[in-house]
């Protein structure tokens, strides 16, 4: 991995600074029972490109939420079981994910204009997000020169 910095700017939705490995989910993660392990934080959703990945300490990069309105409860459950994510990067806000953000109380950035973090960030990037300023830094990219 080479050192590089990319600065993305969105709206800070929940304050605080977090660092972690990005997990980019272009099709989000379904909120239905069983799609995310309530007690192990593992993505079990069929056909999800990150199936088998544990969300603990990760920065989740999502277009928004999808599926059941139980979305937030499964992330909350995993967090209380010791598998909390470090932060959220969300292309555009919706209420399913808004509910999850307020319930988990970890930094979140959303409502990007003119740029989609799903297109810029890669799974495996080490990123720092500032939910107060609404900024994202890539500390280490998985992309080769």
């Amino acid at each position: 991995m080479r050192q590089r910095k990319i600065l993305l700017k969105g709206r800070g939705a929940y304050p605080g600074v977090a660092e972690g490995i990005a997990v980019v989910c272009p099709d989000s993660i379904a909120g239905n029972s069983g799609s995310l392990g309530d007690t192990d934080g593992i993505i079990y959703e069929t056909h999800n490109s990150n199936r088998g990945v544990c969300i603990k300490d990760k920065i989740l990069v999502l277009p928004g939420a999808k599926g059941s309105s139980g979305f937030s409860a499964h992330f909350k459950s995993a967090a209380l079981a010791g598998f909390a994510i470090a932060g959220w990067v969300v292309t555009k806000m919706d209420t399913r994910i808004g509910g999850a953000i307020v319930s988990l109380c970890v930094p979140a950035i959303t409502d990007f204009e003119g740029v989609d973090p799903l297109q810029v960030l890669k799974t495996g990037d080490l990123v720092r997000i500032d939910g107060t300023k609404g900024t994202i830094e890539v500390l280490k990219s998985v992309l080769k020169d």
Partner: protein
Amino acid sequence: MLHLTDYEKKMLSGEFGEFRQAAMRVICDYARVLGADKLCTVRRATLFIGAHHYLDCMDMQQDYTSIFSKFYLNKDEPIPFERMAPECASQTCAAACDLYDYKSTNLSKDFFDRNNNFLNATSRVGVSIVNSCTPYYVGWVPLMGEHFVTNESSNTLMSNSVFGAYGNADGVETAVCSAITGRTPYWGLHVRENRYGNALFKIETQPKTQFDWDLLGYTVGRFLPPHGKPILSADFEQPDINMLRQCFSSLATTSAAEICHITGITPEARDEIDALEGKKPEFEYVIAEKDIQESLAMLCDEGSGPVDLVSIGCPHLSLEELRDIAWMLEGEKVAKGTDLWIWTDYATQVMAERSGYVAMIEGSNAKVLNSSCPLVMREESHKRYSIMVMNGAKQAHNIRGQTDAKVYFGDVKACIKAALRGRWEA
């Protein structure tokens, strides 16, 4: 900047008690996360609470007050229950267990007791025990323009699209806090100008049955872009509410749609122009028969073979559907080694009992069950089965995340036929 009324400020300052204060803090944080600048009054709520499996992370030795405070109110210390907001009619969504029968669905007495204890605790403060994912069958109908919260995604679509009521797909925790405070952020579909459609789907196939509408919803959801608000456009034959229920439950399975306009059918879509506010759609797609067949192939495993579980009633069935099933099963017997579960809410179940339908159904050795479904009961209820038949695209899609069993998907008649034969025929 969030602006609160004097009443809301008093609630936030604790003047109406610690319970409502804690919930109001969550609602205000929620408003800031969304970017809302005020709150609106919520008149109806359905809540996905009880001993649901998202609470499996909690220490069940502690009392429910502690669990409730931690999970829904973000409070480490227990806050005693107080009454829910009087202006809001609050009730429970689908539950994790039938209200009376745990044995037929392979669940434990401990779990059954816990679920009822949790439901009793919240009913004492005003969350009525209804345990339905189709609450409109038993009187929960928000009016046009009325603000609601619900944790049932198909009900979000039904209430917005068909009743013209105003609501978003709220999370469990925030919906609970809305029911306690009677408030939710004035944001998203609570705001009139945000309700127009932006994704136009021309429907080439004419849906005629519940099964057709189920597949149509699933298919539209597959192609709907994130944050899309679909408009289904065609010269539709008049659907009934049960058909739209199937369409909305499957649409909410493959997408995050919260409103769905159907031209000539739903009140905010007399025609395409009405639904689009005269604007051009941001996205257009033509749904053809091949798209529908693709969906069917995704939902129903290939081949024929023996089956050991058949489940009908996702979402929960109406009284007239129980009558139709009773007529299909009268004088018949479910095959030995196959279980047939029929799901509804318990109020409808009581009406079906009094009408004689339950006796006709259970005379075949099928079970009429209430409040839940295999998906919500989770693995413990269905892990003993290896080949399932599911009615309802939502159930057939999502159950695969919980099991390695083969899953067939069909309409009610095909499901009944499979249960009577003990075998699915492709």
